[in-house]
C-alpha cells in the first residue's frame, strides 16, 4: 500500500454525516475480525452470518451516538460481544458444530505442525480431530469465559483492550482466562498427553 489508509475516525465522521459508503468501508474493514470473534463464540457459520449482519445494522443505527470517547474498534467489539452473548443466552437448542472450511494456511503454521504431526504426516485426520475437540471444549465454557478466551487466545487482543470492551477490570480478565484455561485443560486431557 503506497498511500496511508483512511483512519477509522474519519470514516466514522463521514458516516455520522450521512455518507453510507464510508460505513461500507468500515464493514469491509471490520467484518473479517468480528467474524472470528462471533464464530468462535457461536461455533456456527450460519449463526455468525446472521449475527454479524445484525451487529453492523445496530452499529449503523447507533453510530450517531458514538462520541469518540473510546476507539471505534473498542465500540464495535463491545456491540459484537454483547449481541453475541445475548444471542447465546436465547439460543435454546444446542446447534451441531459446523466443521467448516479451514483456511489452508493452517497446514504451514509451525504450532499446528508441532501439535499434530508427532512425526506422523497424516495431518488431515488430526486437523479434523483437533478442531472437533477444541470446539467441544469451547462450547463447555460459559459465554463470558468463552468471550475472553476468544479475544485473548484466538484473536490475540491484549488484556487491557478486552477489559475496555467487556467493561471489567484487567484483573478480572486475567482471572477469567486462568479459570477458562484450566477448564479447557481438563477437557483436552487426551490431546495434552502427547
Amino acid at each position: 500500500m503506497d498511500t496511508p489508509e483512511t483512519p477509522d475516525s474519519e470514516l466514522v465522521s463521514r458516516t455520522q454525516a450521512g455518507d453510507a459508503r464510508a460505513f461500507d468501508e468500515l464493514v469491509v474493514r471490520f467484518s473479517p475480525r468480528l467474524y472470528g470473534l462471533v464464530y468462535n463464540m457461536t461455533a456456527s457459520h450460519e449463526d455468525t452470518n446472521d449475527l454479524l449482519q445484525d451487529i453492523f445494522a445496530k452499529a449503523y443505527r447507533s453510530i450517531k451516538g458514538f462520541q469518540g470517547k473510546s476507539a471505534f474498534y473498542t465500540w464495535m467489539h463491545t456491540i459484537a460481544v454483547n449481541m453475541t452473548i445475548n444471542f447465546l443466552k436465547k439460543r435454546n437448542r444446542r446447534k451441531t458444530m459446523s466443521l467448516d472450511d479451514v483456511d489452508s494456511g493452517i497446514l504451514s503454521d509451525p504450532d499446528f505442525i508441532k501439535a499434530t504431526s508427532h512425526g506422523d504426516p497424516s495431518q488431515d485426520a488430526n486437523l479434523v480431530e483437533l478442531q472437533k475437540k477444541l470446539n467441544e471444549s469451547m462450547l463447555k465454557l460459559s459465554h463470558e469465559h468463552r468471550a475472553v478466551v476468544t479475544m485473548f487466545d484466538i484473536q490475540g487482543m491484549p488484556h487491557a483492550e478486552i477489559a475496555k470492551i467487556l467493561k471489567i477490570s484487567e484483573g478480572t480478565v486475567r482471572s477469567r482466562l486462568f479459570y477458562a484455561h484450566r477448564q479447557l485443560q481438563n477437557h483436552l486431557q487426551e490431546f495434552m498427553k502427547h
Partner: protein
Amino acid sequence: MNWFCHSLWALALLAPLFPLSLGAADQSTAQSLCSELGRIFEQHRRSVVRVYATDELGVRVGSGFFIDPSGLIYTHAGTVMSAEDVKVSFGGRMTPAQVVTIDERNGVAILKVDCASPFIPIGDSDQITNATPVILIGFPEDYEVSSHLGMIAARERQHLGKYFATSHFRANMAVQRGEGGAPVLNLAGEVIGILMARIGDGTACHILPIRAAEKTRQDISRFGELRPGWVGGEVEDAAAAHAGSTAQILTLGPGTPAAQSGLKAGDVILSIDGIPVTRSEDVLDAAYFLTAGDLVEVRIQRDGETRSISVKPTTRPVLPVETMALGN
C-alpha cells in the same frame, strides 16, 4: 452440444461393452432427451433478460423473463429494490423499464418495458413433484445467457429455522450470482418457478413456485396494488387429530376478521379456501394466497362436527424488517 449430451452419446457408443447394454430404443431416448433440452433452451432464451438497477451504491445486475407479449417481466425484488433507474437488456439492446411492483413478501418484482416481447408460458407449479428435472435459463455474472439442468429435491417451508412466506422448491442445481430472478422451466418448456436464493455456495438453491409469483401479478391486475390477506388467527398442533388434522386454533386476535367470523379457539382447521390443512405448519401456504377483501371458506371441526365458516381477510400488517428476519 454440452457435456451432458456428450456423456449420453459416449454412453450410447460404449453400450456394447456393458453387460446391460443400451438397446436401440434407449439410444433414441438419449437422442430425443438431448434435442428436447436443446430445443427448450433455443425456444425460450430470448425471453430471458438481464436487469440493471442503479442507485447511489452502484449497479445491481440480475436476471428476469417476459411473461406476456406486452413486455411484462418477472425479476428478483433484490435486484431492483430502491433503484433510481432500471434498464433491461434483451435482443442486443438496452431498454428502460418501469418498476410495476416490488413484493418483498415473496421476493418478486414486476417490470414493464414499452415494446412487444416473446414470453415463456406459465406452467402449473402445483404439479411439480420431487425428482422432477428442470431447466434454469439465466445470465450468470457477465456471461451470456446460459442453461442449467437440475432436479427439484423437495418443497421447503423453512431454511435454518426461519419460515419462508410460502413454500419454496429446493433444487439441486449449480447457480451463480447474477441469476437471481431467472426462470426455471419444466421439460414441457413452461416456467414453473423463479430462482430466489442460493444455498451456501450455490450448489443448491431455493426457487419460488410460479403460482406464488402469479398472486403478485393478480393483485396488481385486479387492484393496482398488493393486497395480502390476513385474518388474525394463531394455530398450534393438537395432541390428537380431528378429521385428519391437528391444526388447532390457539388464539384469535381481538377485533380481527377471525374473531368476528365465528371461528373459535379450539376449532381444528381442515382447509382454508380449499387448500387442505393437516397440521399447523400447513396454514403457512394456505394463508399466503389470501387476498384482503376476498371472502374465503374455512372448514373446521368443532365438537365432532364439520362446519364451514366464512371469513373476510383484511390487509396483512407489515412487520418491520428486523422482526421478519428474526423469524416467528
